[in-house]
C-alpha cells in the first residue's frame, strides 16, 4: 500500500464531555444521550469556529448499541447537532472508534471528497435505557456490562469457552513482562502502584476526569496513611494475579468530537490547528499475542504504518498515550513503540518520568483508569488531551514544553490496534 495522505489534513476543533455516570455525576447528570453528544459536538464546532451546517460529512461512533439504543446514530443525532442533510455513517471500532473515525475522515479529505468532516463518539457503559423510556436510565450490572462488551470478542470459541479479559489483558501480560525482563513480582507490584499513582495525579488535575481523587487521598479516606499500604490492602484485590483492580479501566458514560478539515482551510479557523501526520490501523483476533504476551503483532504493524506515514522516529515523540485499559499492556505498547526502552517502564514510573512534568510524559488526562472509559468516545478523549497539550491549554497538568509531536495508540476491543500521529502546523 502507498500509505500516504495526498493532501495535508488538520484537526481544527475538539470537544469532550466530563466522563462519569449519567445518573450520578453532577456535570452530566440527567442528560440524554442526544444532549451528551451535542455537548461534545458543540465544543468541537465552537473550537473550529464552525456550525453543523459547515461540515460535509458526519462519522458517528457508538459501539455498544445495547445500552445506547441509538443505531443509525448519525441520523438520530443530526437534529441535536445541526448536521441534517449531510453525508453520514454510523460506525464502530470499539475502543478505537473515534480515532478510526479520524483516520477515515483524514482519508476522505486527503482524497478530495470532503473538505470538513465531523467525527464523534458517544457511549454509555454505566447506564442503559430503562425499559423503553425515551429519557429514563438505569444502572448496568457488572455481568451485563461484560456480556455486551465481550460481544466484540471471539464469539465462536473465545467467550463461550471462558475467555476472561482480566487474565488475557492483565495477568498473563504481567507474567510475560516479568519473566522476559527478570522483574520480581514484588517490584512489579510497586511499579504498578507508581503507574496508578501517576494516572490518579493526572486525573486529579483534570476537571473532566471520571476519578479526580489521588491514591493518597483514597488511602486517607479509608483511614490508611501510607498509599502503598492501601495499594496492597483488601481495597485493591488481585483481579488476575499479579494484576490488581486499580491497574484497570474504570467505566464511564461520555462523548467526544473532532472536526477535521483541509490544512489550508484550518489556518483560518478560530483555534490553533494540529496536523494529522499519519495513522496506522491493524486488527487481529484472539489470542492477541504469540508465545510472548508482551509483543502484539497487530500493534507492531499499526505503529510501523503510522510512523512510516508520518515519517517520524520514536525519538521524535514528545507525548504518548497508549491504550491503558490494562496498565501493564499500555506500558508494553510504549516499549514496543520505542518511547521507553525495553524493560524500563516500571522504573520510569517509579522515577516520575511518566508524569506530565517528566521527560517521558504519558496519558496526562489520567488514561482509561482515572479519566475513565466510554468505549467509542475514549479515543476522542485521548486526541482531545493531545490537542490541548500541543496548544498549551491543558491547565494544571500542562507539560512544561508543549509537545510538537504526539502519538496516540488505542486498542479497539478486540483487537484493533490504532495509532495516530499528530504534529504542529
Amino acid at each position, binding site marked *: 500500500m502507498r500509505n500516504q495522505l495526498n493532501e495535508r489534513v488538520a484537526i481544527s476543533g475538539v470537544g469532550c464531555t466530563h466522563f462519569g455516570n449519567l445518573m450520578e455525576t453532577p456535570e452530566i447528570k440527567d442528560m440524554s444521550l442526544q444532549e451528551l453528544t451535542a455537548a461534545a459536538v458543540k465544543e468541537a464546532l465552537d473550537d473550529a469556529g464552525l456550525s453543523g451546517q459547515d461540515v460535509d460529512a458526519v462519522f458517528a461512533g457508538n459501539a455498544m448499541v445495547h445500552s445506547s439504543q441509538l443505531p443509525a446514530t448519525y441520523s438520530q443525532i443530526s437534529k441535536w447537532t445541526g448536521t441534517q442533510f449531510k453525508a453520514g455513517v454510523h460506525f464502530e471500532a470499539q475502543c478505537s472508534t473515534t480515532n478510526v473515525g479520524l483516520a477515515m475522515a483524514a482519508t476522505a479529505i486527503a482524497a478530495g471528497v470532503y473538505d470538513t468532516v465531523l467525527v464523534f463518539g458517544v457511549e454509555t457503559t454505566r447506564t442503559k435505557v430503562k425499559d423503553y423510556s425515551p429519557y429514563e436510565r438505569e444502572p448496568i450490572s*457488572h*455481568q451485563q456490562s*461484560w*456480556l455486551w462488551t*465481550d460481544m466484540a470478542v471471539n464469539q*465462536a*470459541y*473465545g*467467550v*463461550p*469457552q*471462558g*475467555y*476472561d*479479559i*482480566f*487474565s*488475557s489483558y*492483565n*495477568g*498473563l501480560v*504481567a*507474567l*510475560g513482562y516479568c*519473566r522476559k525482563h527478570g522483574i520480581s*513480582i514484588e517490584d512489579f507490584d510497586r511499579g504498578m502502584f507508581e503507574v496508578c499513582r501517576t494516572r490518579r495525579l493526572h486525573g486529579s488535575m483534570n476537571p473532566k476526569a471520571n476519578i479526580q481523587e489521588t491514591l493518597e487521598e483514597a488511602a486517607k479516606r479509608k483511614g490508611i496513611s501510607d498509599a502503598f499500604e492501601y495499594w496492597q490492602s483488601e481495597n485493591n*484485590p*488481585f*483481579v*488476575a*494475579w*499479579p*494484576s490488581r483492580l486499580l491497574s484497570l479501566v474504570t467505566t464511564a458514560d461520555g462523548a467526544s468530537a473532532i472536526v477535521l478539515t483541509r490544512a489550508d482551510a484550518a489556518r483560518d479557523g478560530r483555534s490553533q490547528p494540529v496536523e494529522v501526520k499519519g495513522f496506522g490501523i491493524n486488527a487481529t*483476533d*484472539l*489470542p492477541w*499475542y*504469540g*508465545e510472548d*504476551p508482551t509483543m502484539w503483532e497487530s500493534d507492531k504493524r499499526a505503529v510501523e504504518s503510522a510512523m512510516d506515514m508520518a515519517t517520524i522516529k520514536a525519538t521524535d515523540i514528545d507525548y504518548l498515550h497508549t491504550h491503558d485499559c490494562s496498565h501493564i499492556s499500555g506500558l508494553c505498547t510504549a516499549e514496543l513503540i520505542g518511547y521507553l526502552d525495553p524493560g524500563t517502564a516500571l522504573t520510569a514510573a517509579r522515577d516520575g518520568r511518566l508524569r506530565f512534568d517528566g521527560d517521558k510524559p504519558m496519558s496526562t488526562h489520567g488514561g482509561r483508569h482515572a479519566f475513565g472509559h466510554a468505549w467509542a468516545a475514549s479515543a476522542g478523549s485521548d486526541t482531545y488531551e493531545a490537542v490541548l497539550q500541543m496548544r498549551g491549554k491543558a491547565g494544571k497538568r500542562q507539560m512544561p514544553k508543549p509537545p510538537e509531536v504526539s502519538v496516540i495508540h488505542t486498542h479497539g476491543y478486540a483487537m484493533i490496534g490504532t495509532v495516530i500521529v499528530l504534529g504542529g502546523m
Partner: protein
Amino acid sequence: MQAMSEKPNKIRWYYEGLSKGVFRASKCGDCGKFTFPPTGCCEYCGSWNVENAELSGKGTLLFATHSGSAASHPRFEKAAPFVYGHIRLDEGPIAQAIIQGVGTSPEDLKALYEKGPVPVQAVTLQMDDLPVIAFNIQD
C-alpha cells in the same frame, strides 16, 4: 477441496468433537499450519485450501493467572474464579483456556510461575450447556 456450500457448520463440528474428547482444527493445504480452533480458511496465509484435522491436545503451559471472581458470563458462574492459562500446543497454535490442577491463590500461582513452563493435556469440561476445553497440568 470441499465446496463451501457442502461444508458443515465448523463451529458446531468443533463443539461436537469436544463433547467426545476430540480436539478439532483445520490444516492448511498450502502452508501446512494448523488453525485452532477451526475456521474455513488458513489464519496464517489466507488460503481456502484447508482440511479438517485433529490435534493431540498436548501442549506447554507458559503462564497462568486467574479469572475475575465474578463470572463475566453466566456459563461460568459456578466455576469462577478459575485458573486461566496461556498455552503453546505441540502442533504450533497458541491457546488460552481454563487450567486444572492448580489453585487460584497468589501463593499457588506464584509457585507455578517460578517452576516455569509445564506440560499440559487438553480435556473436555462439560458445562451445563456446552462442552469447553480445559487443560490439566501433567506432573
